[in-house]
């Protein structure tokens, strides 16, 4: 089972990188700790909900900020929700932008809000990409392990090409 251990170590390294770069914080670890045999897809499910919710909110924000007369309370309400859900899954950088965003809402600063919207879209896009990669690698690697067995799997893990393709 050495191959699996190796894989786990690499996934840990990749995840650690995400933490280092500030994309994720300890709350994500908490999510992983909550997952167990009774609900083995818990983390993926929660993160998927976050993706759906965020996309909805980002659309709402774009619409609300596109109006002639901007309803800042509405904007604030959307940002508050986004802040909450990003905080719940540990998406630190998204959460941080939301904090700044709310300040601009309070000040009814349109330009500031528009800038933040762009920023939060970027951060969301980045963290989404990274999380999807994390899940895909995990899934694909286990599939390969199951198909080819441990020895070949370990060999593949030591190959830079393989890593490049999947990471």
């Amino acid at each position, binding site marked *: 089972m050495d191959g699996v251990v190796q894989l786990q170590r690499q996934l840990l390294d990749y995840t650690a990188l995400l933490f280092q770069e500030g994309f994720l914080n300890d709350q994500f670890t*908490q999510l992983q*700790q*909550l997952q*167990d045999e009774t609900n083995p897809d818990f983390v993926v499910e*929660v993160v998927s*909900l*976050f993706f759906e919710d965020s996309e909805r909110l980002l659309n709402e924000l774009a619409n609300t900020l596109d109006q002639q007369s901007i309803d800042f309370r509405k904007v604030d309400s959307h940002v508050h929700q986004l802040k909450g859900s990003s905080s*719940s899954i540990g998406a630190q950088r998204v959460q941080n932008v939301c904090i700044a965003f709310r300040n601009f809402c309070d000040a009814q600063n349109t330009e500031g809000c528009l800038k933040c919207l762009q920023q939060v879209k970027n951060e969301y896009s980045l963290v989404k990409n990274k999380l999807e990669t994390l899940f895909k690698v995990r899934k694909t690697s286990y599939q390969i392990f199951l198909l080819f067995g441990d020895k070949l799997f370990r060999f593949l893990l030591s190959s830079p090409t393989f890593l490049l393709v999947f990471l």
Partner: protein
Amino acid sequence: MGMATESQFHVLAVDDSLIDRKLIEKLLKNSSYQVTTVDSGSKALEFLGLHENDPNTPSVSPNSHQEVEVNLIITDYCMPGMTGYDLLKKIKESSSLRNIPVVIMSSENVPSRITRCLEEGAEEFFLKPVQISDVNRLKPHMMKAKNKDQQQENQEKQEKQDEESEETEKSEPGSQQPQQQHQQQQQQQQQSNNNKRKAIEEGLSPDRTRPRYSGLTVV
């Protein structure tokens, strides 16, 4: 699978955020609680068998309340329509529900908000995102409420027995005690409220000594 000689505690979780409902549900289920989640204060009251506009209608639906015994209510503060604070007030104003411990969750650390909730009778105030260590603090409140109910039940039984056996002149010490006990309990409640607020402000967790969550269900 533990040997559950006592039935599970049932927690009602109220939050308008789907993600947070999913989270709190998992947190609670991992602690072996039975969980019901609703997305609003009004749905919570409905579930509890209470009608919004009529706080004292236990006689209207006593059965629905008894069928769904709820041992603790944990609610988000910021919700559209009825806030967690409004819900807390309604529960404490209801004669049938006021003994159920209520815990408030909020993503915002606003001291005046925390104070208001504790003063209104909330047992705890958790900052979101809620942690496993927070959930570990719930059991004592549910045990206390259960014991209180048990005590009241026993007392009522005792008084009934005393009444029934009152052929001869028998003094009823029972009638004096409830009042004193109640006052004592009120004082204790105040004290522990103050302690709790302090704990929250200082970020202490009396349950630090508990073993960390290790993926096993806690009995």
